[in-house]
Each structure stands twice: as C-alpha cells, then as structure tokens.
C-alpha cells in the first residue's frame, strides 16, 4: 500500500536531523497557524500564491532562494565544523550523515539557492526593463515557480523521511546505481531536480520568448539593458542545456527503477557517458548562473558611477561569446579520466578562451568607473568585491584548465575553493547586489545601508578567511568530501577555514538583521520617487512598487539608456512629458494552476521516491487535470479601467515632478 514507506525510515535514532527537522517543522507550522488564525490566508492566496504577476513571482523566487541559501549555509557550517573536529577523530557526523550533508549542500545551493535567486531577479526586473506589462506566458511563469518550490520541498522532506543522496551533488554512477546506493537518497535527488528542472526549462522558454518578442516600442536589441542581454543569454542556455539534464537523469532513473543498463557496471553500461552528459549540462549551468550576475554588475556599476556602461556593444559580444563557448568546454571537469593528450589540450584551450570574454567584461566595468562619480552604496560595494574576487577565481579557473596542473589539483580543496570563489564571488555577490539594488523597486523602501555594508564586509572577509586556507590545503593534497582525515599538515588550514566560517556566519546574521531593521524602519527608508539610485533603465520610470500593469502607457524608447534620456529631457526642459491618453489595460487573471499543479507534482514525486504506485497515478492525473481545466477557462484576462490607470500614473507623475524640482545631480 505504501511502497517502501514505513516507520523505520524516520531516523528516530539520530538526534541531530530529528532536532533540526523538528525546529523547521515547528517554524513552518507556527507560520501557517499565524497565517490562518490572523486571517491572512485569503490575502496570501489572492495576492501571492495564485498571482501571475512577474514581480510577485520574482519576489517569491527570491524568498525561496533566501530560505534555501540559509539551509545550504547550515549544511556548510556542519561540514566545516565536522572537518575542524575530525582530525584523527570521528567528529560528530558519521559518514552516512556527512555524505548526505555535502550532497544536499551542493544540490540546494545550485538548484534551490542560486538558480531561484537569479531567476527571481530576472522575473522582477526583465519585463520592467523591456518596458512591457508582463512576461510572455504569465501562468506558465507561476507554474515554473511552484515546480521549483516542489523540488526544494522534496529535498527538505528527505531530512525527516528517509535520507538524501550520499553521492555528491552530481550523482556519478556506478555509486548512484541501486547496487551501491540502494536507499531512496538518490531517488529524492532525481525527482527533486527533475521536477524543478521542468520549471527551470519553462522559465527559459518564457524569457527567451519575452525578450525576443515583447519589447517596448523602439526597444531594438541594441537598446536593451545589459541585464536583459545576459538574461537572454542565460535563458538560451537554459533552453539548450536543461533538456540534457532531464535526459541524463531520466536514464539514471530508468537504471534505478527498471533495471536498465545505461550507466551500470554490468551489461555494457557506460558510466563515462553519464559524466560527459551531466557536464554538457553542468558547465553551461555555471554560465546560466553567472551571466545574469554579470548583467546586474553592469547595471549597478553604471548607475553608481553616474555614467553609461563603457563599451556596450563589446559587452554584448562578450556575453554571446561566453554563451556559445560555454558549450564547448565540458570535458575539463574530467581531464583526469584518461582522455588522452589531444582531447585534454583541446578542451583546456577552449576553456581558457572563455576567460577572454570575462576579461573583456572586467576591463569594461573598470572603464565604466573611469571618469565617473562613484557612490559607494551597498550594491556598488558588492560589485567592487566581486571584481577583485572574481579575477582571482578566474585565475585559479584558468589554472585548472591547464591539464598538467589539473592532474595535481583535481578534486582537491583547491578545486572546491576555486568554484566557491567564482560562485560566491560572482553569482552570490551579484545576487546580493541585485537584491539591495532592486529591493526598493519591489517593496517601496530601501534596505538599511549600515547593516548592508556590515554584511558585505563580514561576508567578504569571511569568504577570504574560509577559502584561502582551502586553496592552501588543496595544494597540500587534501581531497574534498572527507568525513575525517589523518594528515597533520592539513589540520591548521582546516581550523583556519573554520574561523572563516564563523566570520561568514556573522555576515549572514547581519543580512538577516538588515532585513528586519529595514522592515521596522520602512517609513524612514521609504522610496517616494520610484528612482532611489538615480537609475538609467526603464524599471526606474515606474513607481515603487510598480502597479500591476507596470506602465500606464508603454514607453517609446529612443536610445540605449531609455529612462536616463527621458529624465535628462525633463531636467533640461524642467517639466515632465505630456500626460499620455489613458486607456483601459487588460491584464492576465490570477490562476491557481501553478500551485495546484505543483501540489500534485509533489505528491507524484514523493510517491515515485517511495514506489507508491497508486499515488503516482493520482498525482500525474491530478496535474494533468489541472492543466486541462486551465486550458478550458473562458476569461483569461480582466480590465483595469482608464480612470484607475490615470489615478495611479498621476500619483507617479507628481512624485517625479517633486523629484525634478529637488534634483541636484552629480557634481559636474
């Protein structure tokens, strides 16, 4: 009746996960109880859960990302502290638990931390910057989000019911095959990633369509903001790469569920094919994450230097260059599997060629600052921290692309330090820059600057104190993923990295405090103008937070920095543009399709993991029925009357007029 499910699968004998999950469960129950008892549920259902507004979905993505970053970070704390205690000692995490922790850390950070953060910011900003009212497929967008949330939920269920994968974040066969991983851990991984991967693929399709087909009048490709360009590149990569992931995981699933032999030891299975395929997705994935971050830095550095982006066309070229070359380098993840000199050399060179694109970007950001009037607000600090840190990470990356050097460093903590250097220093710093930069746009008030700067400095210092020792200990030959170790030369470095972890933890606390303090002081931090940073792209033309329809009348774009030119003209003429003719606006109706579909997907995923076949059928049918009902609905849109549009836009105009009067601008 219940497949492999029984009371034995809940680890009552292990206090640590039990306490952790009990705390999480209590917190969730507490929030739910509060929502229902205080009568917030109808509001949440109407305004958020069923919302198809790209801004709301973006906020929910970001919230999911922040929660999952916390979960992944607590895994990181456990790993660092375990290793600090495990010199010639067992530490406090037994191997089967430690191995789940590092597998969950990687999976959560990439799939449910970094991806939703980046996609959340894309959702919030791209339609605004394009000057349009929503993405191409608003309901599909909601489905994407909720499927991602399903994946995150499944990973976290594994904490209590059963176990998570103990194979690393990429489950290399044959270790991940049933012969060596008979438990449900790998199945949790497969279905969580598979279901959220569908959501990501839909997002990619949605954004490619939106950016290619739905720009404001006059917004040619070469007038789009840099963030739109990098989002387009990332979305193209998603569309091209995620089907590979889906197919690869489907093959491993067939191996595990139906005794196929794609990657097994026996019957002609080829495990190297898995390694090739997973990295054919995995390397573009790195750029899916980092390209939007590059876009954020372009926006931030230009805005806070009070200058246009230097070498815009060059930046576009570099972005597309990276987008294409990122598909030709996957083999550098396994130089040490004996491919031979010609193959290794070719892929090594291809890999280092990517550094040309990133190098150009770094120099262009540098010259964007040249001749600027730089304001060191928190987003700018994250960007500067990124430029310095990422250059170092890029250097160690190119070093690892040199096969003879990689033979010495592959799978060592040097490698671990390298990819944290580029993912923390690139993606995460970018996401935090974007988070502080666009927070006022989403909520109408800024984040607290003092706490933000403290969080930045603690995170930056914590990062270096953690990962410079890991570089060093990697040069000493220490391998990643070790539950304990016996070599005394490694011990001081591991302890030093533990100290770095403490500093980073303080940084995380500062981030949380920043959010709490900002919410409490929101009246003082209010952004009345909708343009708190003297911005240059179209999102700053809307009020903060923007109305559901974004723009009362779609803007006519006449140059590369559309809002900046509108603002400059207003400043020169000392008046706003004439009021447009207000017309009624049609907007897509809210839809519970995404939420209900994700509910059934969760049921189906859970049932597949535990081999409860009747429940699988129920979940699949439910999800299908949801789509059928959605497809049959008659009234997909509702109308906002012209008077309402006028009222909202006139409020925005009066705020702009006030800002125009008080504007001083950068000192000439």
């Amino acid at each position, binding site marked *: 009746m219940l497949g492999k499910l029984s009371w034995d699968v809940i680890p009552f004998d292990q206090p640590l996960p039990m306490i952790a999950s009990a705390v999480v469960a209590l917190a969730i129950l507490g929030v739910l109880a509060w929502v229902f008892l205080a009568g917030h549920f109808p509001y949440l259902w109407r305004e958020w859960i069923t919302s198809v507004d790209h801004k709301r979905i973006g906020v929910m993505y970001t919230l999911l990302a922040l929660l999952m970053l916390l979960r992944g970070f607590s895994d990181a704390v456990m790993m660092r502290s375990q290793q600090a205690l495990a010199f010639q000692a067992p530490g406090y995490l037994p191997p*089967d638990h430690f191995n789940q922790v590092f597998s969950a850390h990687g999976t959560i950070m990439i799939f449910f931390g970094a991806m939703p953060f980046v996609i959340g910011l894309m959702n919030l900003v791209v339609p605004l910057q394009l000057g349009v009212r929503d993405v191409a497929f608003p309901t599909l967008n909601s489905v994407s989000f909720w499927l991602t949330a399903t994946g995150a939920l499944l990973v976290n269920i594994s904490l209590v019911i059963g176990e998570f994968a103990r194979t690393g974040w990429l489950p290399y066969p044959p270790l991940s095959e049933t012969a060596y991983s008979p438990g449900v851990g790998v199945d949790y991984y497969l279905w969580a990633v598979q279901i959220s991967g569908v959501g990501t693929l839909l997002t990619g399709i949605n954004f490619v369509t939106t950016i290619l087909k739905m720009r404001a009048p006059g917004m040619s490709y070469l007038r789009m903001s840099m963030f739109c360009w990098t989002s387009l590149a990332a979305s193209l990569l998603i569309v091209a790469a995620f089907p590979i992931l889906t197919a690869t995981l489907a093959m491993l699933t067939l191996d595990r569920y139906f005794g196929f032999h794609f990657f097994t030891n026996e019957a002609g299975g080829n495990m190297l094919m898995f390694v090739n395929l997973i990295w054919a997705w995995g390397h573009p994935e790195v750029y899916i994450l980092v390209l939007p971050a590059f876009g954020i830095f372009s926006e931030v550095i230009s805005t806070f230097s009070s200058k246009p982006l230097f070498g815009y066309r*060059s930046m576009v070229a570099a972005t597309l260059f990276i987008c294409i070359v990122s598909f030709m380098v996957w083999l550098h993840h396994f130089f040490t*599997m004996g491919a031979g000199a010609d193959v290794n050399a070719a892929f090594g060179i291809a890999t280092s*060629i990517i550094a040309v694109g990133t190098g150009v970007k770094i120099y262009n950001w540098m010259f964007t600052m040249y*001749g600027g009037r*730089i304001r060191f607000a928190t987003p700018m600090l994250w960007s500067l921290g990124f430029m310095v840190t990422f250059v170092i990470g890029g250097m160690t990356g190119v070093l690892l692309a040199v096969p003879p050097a990689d033979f010495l460093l592959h799978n060592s903590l040097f490698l671990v330090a390298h990819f944290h250097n580029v993912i923390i220093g690139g993606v995460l710093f970018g996401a935090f820059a974007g988070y502080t930069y666009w927070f006022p746009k989403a909520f109408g008030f800024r984040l607290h600057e003092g706490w933000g700067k403290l969080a930045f400095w603690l995170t930056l210092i914590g990062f270096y104190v953690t990962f410079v020792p890991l570089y060093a200990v990697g040069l000493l030959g220490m391998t990643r993923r070790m539950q304990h170790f016996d070599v005394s030369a490694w011990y001081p470095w591991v302890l030093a990295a533990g100290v770095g972890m403490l500093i980073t933890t303080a940084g995380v606390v500062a981030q949380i405090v920043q959010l709490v303090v900002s919410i409490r002081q929101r009246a003082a931090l209010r952004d009345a103008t909708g343009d708190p940073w003297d911005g240059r792209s179209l999102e700053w033309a809307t009020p903060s937070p923007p109305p559901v329809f974004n723009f009362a009348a779609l803007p006519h774009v006449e140059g590369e920095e559309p809002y900046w030119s509108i603002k400059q003209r207003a400043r020169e003429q000392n008046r706003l543009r004439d009021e447009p003719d207000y017309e009624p606006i049609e907007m897509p109706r809210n839809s519970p399709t995404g939420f209900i579909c994700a509910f059934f997907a969760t049921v189906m995923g859970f049932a597949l993991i535990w081999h409860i076949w009747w429940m699988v059928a129920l979940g699949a049918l439910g999800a299908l029925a949801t789509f059928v009902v959605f497809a049959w609905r008659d009234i997909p849109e509702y109308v906002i009357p012209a008077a309402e549009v006028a009222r909202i836009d006139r409020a925005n105009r009066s705020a702009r007029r006030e800002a125009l009067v008080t504007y001083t601008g950068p000192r000439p």
Partner: protein
Amino acid sequence: MLLRVIVRNCAAIRLGCLGATILLVGLLAGCQGGVLDPQGPVGAAQRTILLNSVAIMLAIVIPTIVATLGFAWWFRETNTRARYLPEWAYSGRIELVVWSIPILVILFLSGIIWIGSHDLDPMKPLDSQQKPLEVQVVSLDWKWLFIYPEQNVASINQLVVPAGRPVHFSLTSASVMNAFFVPQLGGMIYTMNGMTTQLHLQADQLGEFYGRSAHFSGDGFPGMQFVLHAVAADAFDAFVNSARSQGQALDKASYQELARQSIDVPPSTYRSVEPDLFHEIATQGVPPAPGPQAGRPEPSVSPATGG
C-alpha cells in the same frame, strides 16, 4: 590622467606584488608534502607548469585588481580633483587593448596547455635507462589493491616501489569510481570498472609518500589511503621476498572475500596472485564487487562500531 592614477598607485602596486610574493613563498614553504614539494620527475614538471601559469596570469591579474581599486577610489564622488566624464562610454583604442590583452595571454597559455598536455600525458612512458616496474592497481570498497604481476605478489593499502626507477601503473576499479593520487609524485588518474587507465610515475628519492583516493566513493572514502614507500632496489627485493613467504594467496575465492565492503583496512600482503586477475577484473570477467545490502550501511562497515 590615466597615467597619473597609475603613478599614484605605484606604491599600491608594489605592495600588492609584495603581498602576493609573500603569500606564494609562504605557500611554497608551508607545502611540505604537497603538490608544490614534488619528489619525482612527473610531479616536478607539473609543478613547473602550475607555477609558470600562475606567474603569467598574475602579471595581468595584479595590475587589474590594483587598477580596479585605484579607479574606484580616485573617481569617488567626494574627490574634487577627479574629472567627471558623464557621456564617455566608448573608445576604440581602449576596446582594442581590452580585447588584445586577454587574447594574447590566452594564446601564450594555450601553447603551454598544448605542449604540457602532450609532454605530461599520463599514458606516456618516462625517459629512463631502467625498465619500468609494472604495478596493477584495483580500487575496492574501500581499500587499494596493488598487484605486482612480475613478482607475483600483491599488497593492500601499501605500495612499495624502488626509488629512481619508473613505475607503470595499470588501473581499474572493482566497484565505483575512485582516483589514484600520490600528491608528491604528481599526476592523478581515475579508476573505473570495465576500463583500464594508465599512469607513469617515478620517485627520485627514498621516502614515504602519502597517497589516497581523490574521488568520493562512499562511506569508507576517508580511509582509502595508503603509503607509498620508495625504497632502494635491494630493499624492494627484500619486500618481495618477505611478501612471498607469508600471508594468503590471492585467488578467486580470497578476492571475493576482499571485494566485500570494509573500512580502514590495515596494510597487508598476499603471497601470490592468480594469473590474469587484474585483466579479469578490468574486463568484468569476475563480477563487479557488491555494494551494501540495505539503505544504510551494514553494521560491520560502520566506523561507529569500529568495523
């Protein structure tokens, strides 16, 4: 203008270089036993390539970092002496330089990559007067089996080789993937079931070198380590003789026993080895080693119970 910024930051550049040098020297000095302290020709050549590549890249990375910080500081909002160029967003000359610098560096580095990859191909035999010692390596859950086919002995979790003589490793895995790695001798190579990989290494001096698996392979992974003893030629013969005179014989039956999962296995030797055993394992003539029988590891392999 630009020049003035650079001149002003000269002190900073020097300081940056000094810092990088100190860090590098510190790492070199502190890396006793690591990949920067090689004890054989392969490791030494790989280290040279590693350090050369770092030096080439530092030559542009350090100025880039310094210039980034310099620009950011000089053009701060409060600096009244800095020029404001609110429209300046393009310069053909700078674009040319900006594309050329990375391209030139990568061209140079590509040469190193191409030549280095071929010179240090793990499959390539080492230049030596002496005939290489043949060693067959099998990774098991979770221990290393080293077979000496010419001597017809085998050892677990210890590797004895004559110093100064090249060693030719043929490697495979009985179960999951692992990577054979002796940091001070250089070069890492994976072991995979159904496949044979090749590696050539040599220890120049007498000594004991730490080796381990570099690819995660399951619960017993931390204990998948061994010591490589580089000994004099006569000591190697003595090792072979002593191995021959004691311990079990490694035949199909004792191999099946060995292939079962076990953790933190102490070093031992086998007096003889069934001919062609390595070949049988690598071509799946003997079935791959079994995994655990339940979701959680059996009690016998859990370190908590000292198994």
